[in-house]
């Protein structure tokens, strides 16, 4: 048994092992997402009343107070040292309708503007107010949210803040990322749940979606996990690349393994 043979054989098994690990990782992520999505569908509680969402009432015509009873009214009397104001890490663009190519931005908050990200002087939860900032209502289209915009520390009139707009979920999640980053109580609360920081942020951004789901009012498209996401695409690409390389060098492996 030559050294060259041992090295080639060893390398071959290493590549195969990596391939198996990558495939297992991809299968786990895809399987988990598919299972989560399936469970969401089958476990949706049945509601006695037909919610406006189920009746497909347009967001602009929807009476959002209909869901008030879904949210807690009693709160532990705890005080959290929160950083309420942050500079938005992305430009926030708000629309009066889910935009097509020609829809204009109604309100734009430029990257770097100081916004009141965590609502101040709340009478309920210290972390969020339904319908404000990152605590948005789901729409009928995945990735688009319906919410009152973040207040800026300068120049925004109250009328703008009482008005609901459409905004991309990923821009709200970018703000939430920063909110969690600068606020220890958020991090502590997420850690207490034991599911990792990303899972925690996912849940905070979909707070209303979860409440609607638990009451059987609506299965938001944003609650589903993405089966084809960036990580899965990268994993699949890596798997494909390794297989192609193995096949192209098939002759080499076979010859050396004789």
């Amino acid at each position, binding site marked *: 048994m030559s050294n060259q043979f041992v090295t080639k054989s060893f390398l071959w098994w290493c590549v195969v092992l990596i391939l198996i690990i990558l495939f297992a990782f991809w299968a786990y992520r895809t399987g988990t997402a598919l299972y989560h999505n399936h469970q969401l569908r089958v476990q949706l509680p049945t509601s006695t009343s037909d919610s406006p969402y189920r009746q497909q009432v347009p967001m602009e015509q929807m009476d959002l107070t209909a869901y008030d009873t879904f949210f*807690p009214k009693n*709160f*532990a*009397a705890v005080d959290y040292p929160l950083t309420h104001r942050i500079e938005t890490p992305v430009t926030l663009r708000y629309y009066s309708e889910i935009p097509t190519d020609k829809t204009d931005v109604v309100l734009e908050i430029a990257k770097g503007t100081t916004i009141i990200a965590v609502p101040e002087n709340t*009478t309920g*939860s210290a972390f969020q107010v339904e319908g404000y900032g990152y605590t948005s209502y789901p729409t009928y289209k995945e990735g688009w949210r319906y919410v009152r915009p973040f207040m800026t520390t300068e120049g925004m009139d109250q009328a703008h803040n009482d008005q609901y707009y459409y905004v991309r979920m990923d821009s709200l999640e970018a703000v939430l990322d920063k909110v969690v980053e600068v606020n220890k109580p958020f991090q*502590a609360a997420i*850690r207490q749940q034991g599911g990792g920081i990303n899972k925690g942020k996912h849940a905070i951004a979909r707070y209303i979606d979860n409440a609607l789901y638990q009451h059987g009012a609506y299965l938001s498209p944003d609650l589903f996990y993405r089966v084809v996401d960036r990580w899965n695409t990268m994993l699949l690409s890596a798997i494909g690349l390794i297989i192609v390389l193995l096949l192209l060098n098939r002759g080499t492996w076979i010859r050396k393994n004789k």
Partner: protein
Amino acid sequence: MVKKYTRYFFSLVLVLLMIPQIAIASNSNRYEDFTNTTPKAIVEAMKLQEPALQAYQNLWNSFEKDESGTPIYPDDYAGEYISKDKLVIMLVDPSQSLKEDYIKRSKDGEHIKFENASYSLNYLNSLSSVAQQLSDQNYRISVYGVDRKANSFFISIIQEDYEKLMKNQSLTLQKTIENLPIRIEPGAPNTSTSALWGGDRITNEDNGAGLSVGIGGTYGGNNAILTAGHSNEKVGIFFPRYPYIQYLSTQTGQVVYQRANTSSSATGVGTLGDFAVVKLTGSDTATNKVYGGVSITGTYSSVPVGTTIYKYGATSGYSSGTVNQISLTVTYSDGLFTTYTVSGLYQSSMSNSSGTDAIAGGDSGGPVYMKDGTAYKLHGIVTARQEPMSGYPASIMYSTPIYYAVDAGFTVKTS
């Protein structure tokens, strides 16, 4: 045999001699004059320093002040200290005219000395940003500031974190401070020596949650305080432990017992009440005092609907009201993920004289008490509040009766 009895005899004599001393010490009065006990050397040193201190007072008065009364130092000023009968003023590159200016400011040429310094006080104070950076990286700093005599800035980090810092960031740190007059040294955590009163603000060191002290007492023979159970859950995944509690930014103890049910289907003792017992590990002491000069002399756990009660919370302060409902099971949220479902709670309508929120975030754990004749008795501690209607002050309070904590082994201090 004789030797043995002699030892016993002398021990007994020693103990007997200690008794009057202990009696004198325990009789100390808050208004007692201690000046006659000051050592002679100290008295003489104080006398010697008097003119230098007067010169310092004049110098201080000569500085402009900001809105908070903090002096705005000139850029050539580097600090001062007292040496025997002289006030040593440190200046950066002092010229003769500059020295004369400072003599004029201190109105004393005789008790002033000058020392050349490399860094101005303004510059040294600006180095506090380095301490802030370390603190942001979760290194626990016991003290930092300008060492005036040494004309440098020092940061004292508690031993455990100091070692961590030296291990993890030794090179980066050296690079950051190599050209700066900064000294980083290991230090010990500061301990406070306060008497904790019901209504004092305490903080969960691990999640930052602000709560109130309920009352002092004992738990398992140790000094302890009672507070709310919510937000005081165990932390850590692999080695879970109860959180540490701070008073005035200094660690005062650790939670040793906690109860606040989070399971909606749970039943039994674990669902009754929302409280945590904090064992005092520093030198703070537990008392039976409540803000407003109230001394708790007993407990009155079970009260009927209509009873008038008082509460004190660290945020909203004092309020009074009436018990509306008893033995309720209440569901309340921490505002984010955790929902508590707790049984055995009382509901009361509270108000204060200013018409503002009678209960607010930070009041959790605060004492709820009542008057029984001339005595004040503890009924329980603050648990939660109901979100008020828009434009109205928060008034509905939920509280945990003291019985559950007593049943779990906490003894309320009543004297």
